[in-house]
């Protein structure tokens, strides 16, 4: 009895070998790149793996090794290509810790993109929280050129970089989960993170005003060459356009399912247009979206956004804090600018994209009793493009920070 029991124990331990794998027998993929090739159905997959010995105290002599190993192989889907990669990578590639999937713009714009990305949802290894980045250049180039300076470990880089960029709203939260929900919901536009390591025609700051860039356009000296800015617009699983960081922020403000912490922005000083007033924009409450669906006439969509701003700097030294009239003017300036920009974005989406990047289709659903009638009403062909949309921004609170007054120029220059 006891002997058989012991035997059984050993049997189990032996049998467990199939799934048991030692930590050092695996390579942890942090980023996956997807590029299309000339053959339909074949893709180039780039895997960026972390080198565990770099950046850990236990790794003796590992400091000369690079922090990551990047390999590119051809294959038909994400998982099977890892096995091909094993012909020259010594360890088993594990996708559990993947943080980002990088797709080249070219691939994202192709019709077949949905096919290759679909395979990612089939394996339990790739999580739904993985962020999707669209790179201007080839994904393999993006991953190879991406050389973060301060974060030696790649996963840390992606984690901190994206968290911060998403918090400030210049790139959207673009998890695979969101991608699939929106794409399969077949109504709205999905926004992917847009990034590049290549410099393109750089705009100067006055044109850009902090956030009117897309990645690659930001003048930069020093630091890592990689820029995250703006978003790639996907319609029905296919990329159709790029929007700037500013537009991405507006999309954040309008979409209740996206979260943004607030950002710093500037407006031209209404009193002295040569200077700009900087403020911190924040939105304590979700936008109120009120859709009135009408079967035969255009649907009306009313959106109300309450926001707060805190003035950070007034280089013109105008006395906004004390003077009510000035302050009103400043408030008006901010609201008008926001409304103008929003209007432009909505117009673009209605005319050009013929769908919305704000996930508003959710709010029209309640007018339908069942899915067939909802699908028949057709949000992105019939309802949205013809809708009348009014967006009102309400400035809830205007704060001036810890200084009551700026130094008076004429007194200083006495």
């Amino acid at each position, binding site marked *: 009895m006891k002997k058989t029991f012991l035997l059984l*124990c050993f049997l*189990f*331990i032996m*049998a*467990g070998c199939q*799934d*048991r*794998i*030692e*930590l*050092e027998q*695996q390579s*942890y993929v*942090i980023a996956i790149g997807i590029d299309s090739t000339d053959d339909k159905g074949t893709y180039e997959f780039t895997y960026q793996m*972390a080198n*565990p*010995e770099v*950046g*850990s*105290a*236990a*790794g*003796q002599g*590992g400091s000369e090794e690079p922090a990551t190993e990047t390999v590119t192989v051809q294959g038909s889907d994400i998982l099977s290509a890892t096995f091909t990669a094993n012909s020259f990578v010594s360890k088993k590639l*594990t996708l*559990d*810790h993947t943080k980002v999937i990088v797709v080249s713009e070219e691939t994202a714009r192709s019709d077949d993109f949905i096919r290759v990305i679909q395979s990612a949802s089939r394996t339990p*290894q790739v999580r739904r929280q993985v962020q999707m980045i669209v790179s201007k250049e080839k994904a393999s180039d993006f991953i190879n050129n991406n050389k973060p300076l301060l974060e030696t*470990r790649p*996963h*840390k880089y992606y984690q901190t970089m994206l968290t911060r960029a998403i918090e400030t709203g210049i790139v959207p939260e673009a998890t695979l989960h969101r991608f699939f929900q929106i794409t399969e919901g077949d109504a709205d536009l999905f926004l992917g993170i847009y990034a590049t390591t290549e410099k393109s025609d750089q705009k100067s700051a006055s044109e850009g005003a902090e956030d009117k860039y897309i990645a690659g356009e930001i003048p930069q000296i020093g630091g890592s060459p990689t820029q995250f800015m703006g978003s790639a617009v996907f319609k029905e699983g296919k990329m159709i356009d790029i929007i700037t960081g500013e537009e991405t922020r507006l999309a954040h403000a309008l979409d209740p399912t996206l979260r943004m912490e607030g950002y710093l922005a500037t407006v031209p000083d209404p009193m002295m247009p040569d200077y700009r007033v900087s403020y911190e924009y924040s939105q304590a409450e979700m936008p109120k979206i009120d859709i009135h669906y009408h079967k035969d006439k255009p649907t009306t969509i009313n959106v109300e956004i309450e926001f707060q701003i805190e003035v950070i700097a007034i280089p013109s030294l105008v006395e906004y804090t004390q003077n009510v009239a000035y302050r009103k003017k400043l408030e008006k300036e901010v609201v008008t600018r926001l409304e103008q920009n929003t209007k432009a974005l909505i117009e673009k989406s209605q005319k050009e994209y013929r769908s919305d990047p704000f996930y508003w289709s959710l709010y029209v659903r309640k007018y339908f009793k069942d899915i067939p009638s909802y699908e028949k009403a057709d949000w992105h062909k019939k309802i949205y493009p013809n809708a009348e949309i009014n967006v009102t921004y309400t400035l809830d609170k205007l704060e001036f920070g810890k200084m009551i007054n700026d130094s008076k120029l004429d007194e200083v220059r006495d």
Partner: protein
Amino acid sequence: MRKMKGSQKQNKNKETIHYSLSANIEEMKQSFSYGLNKDFAMRTLKAKYNEKKACLFYYSSIVNGDTITTHIIKPLLEQTGEKLSNIVTIENVEEVTDFETAIQNINSGKVILFIEQDSTAYSMDAADFQHRTVTKSENERFIKGPQDAFTESLNTNISLIRKQLHNHQLVNESIQVGKRSKNEVNIIYVKDLVNNDILSNIKKRLDDIDVDSIRNIELLEQYLEERPYSLIPTILYTEKPDKATAFLEDGYVILLMNTSSACLIMPVTFWSFFHSPEDRYLRFLYGNFSRAIRLLCFYLTSMISATFVAIANFHSEMIPPDLLLAITASRERIPFPLIFEILIMEIAFELIREAGIRIPNPLGPTIGIVGALILGQAAVEANIISPIIVIIAALSGLSSFAIADLSMNFAVRILRFIFILAAASYGMLALTGAFLIIFMYAASIKSFGVPFFSPMSPEFVSTKDTIFRKILKKEIYRPGYLDLKDNRKRSE
């Protein structure tokens, strides 16, 4: 009066005491191999009160010589009076009519007096067994609470208990066990509380023990158990009188022997092993805090190594990437699989533990040095062990000390190895399965009819003192699973 149970079957010496003194002397001399047996003493004298010859028998090693001289011999030689009981000044005198009893009495430290032309012998207590004095508890330590511990003397131990429990219902009953060496086992209980079924069950088990001798309580424990092969103990062993008294007050039964510096408490539940009396001496929050820590220790010591093996070998996705890379980096140069590393460390820890108990006092400090070498930096630098394993093993070893009860401690330490092997075989699946089986096994155990996890499940009226205790004022009931005669501690 002491009851003579369990001895009836063996009656080769059942003959009654003779009328003639010389025959009695001869009988006694033969029984105790007088002359060969160096400490067996005989003293003949002439009693003054009835002018007859008398003879005293005793073991000189286990009686108090002064007592005999001043309270037996001197009065016999000098005093006059009617009856023997009026002459000797010793505490109690019992009449004995057969040799078997006489022999037993001598063995337990009494003096037997034979008198010419008297078929009754007199047994007088002058026992003085050597024992330690009451010392501080060595193995169960408190910061707050009484510090005394039982010692190897029945009278002292009972005195320690009675000191705390002033109750005339506290009964100290004795049963003899063993055939060749008849040792006394004392059953202590509160008469108007205890459940008679449990009490008679215990007595029956004591009666049923059919063995030559049971020297001490530690051996008795194993004779009383229902399931000797079981991993989980069903009798509680403690050396603290205050702990024993607390259980007595709740209606439990306690066994004591003259030879052990501890007592047995029964029946038990899981909570008896989990609790420490100090939880109640500490204030409500502090006591429960230490309970919470102890619960964590239970988990850590039994499962942490196994959990680590399961996660690292099967579910590596769970480890946060930074930690994962650090562990991986340190494992790159280790020549063994992870399970081997863990086993090496766990066994090394057990080695140090076992050796540490056996090591003679003067060599004590060595164990620390050697231990630190095996379990520490040296092993890591030799690339045998990765640093995280040292932490894991240290954690599981350290927390094992929080389980104060020795039996439970062993059980958990053995379980640890079972869990490690299970985790190594099929990760969390096997680990969860193994835990569930063992848990259900524990739930199925009954100690003297009491389910192991009561009063949590099955539920009983009780103080609800399981993982956490209530404030003392809210403890109204005694444990309902004991089915006591008086179930209330206090009125509301």
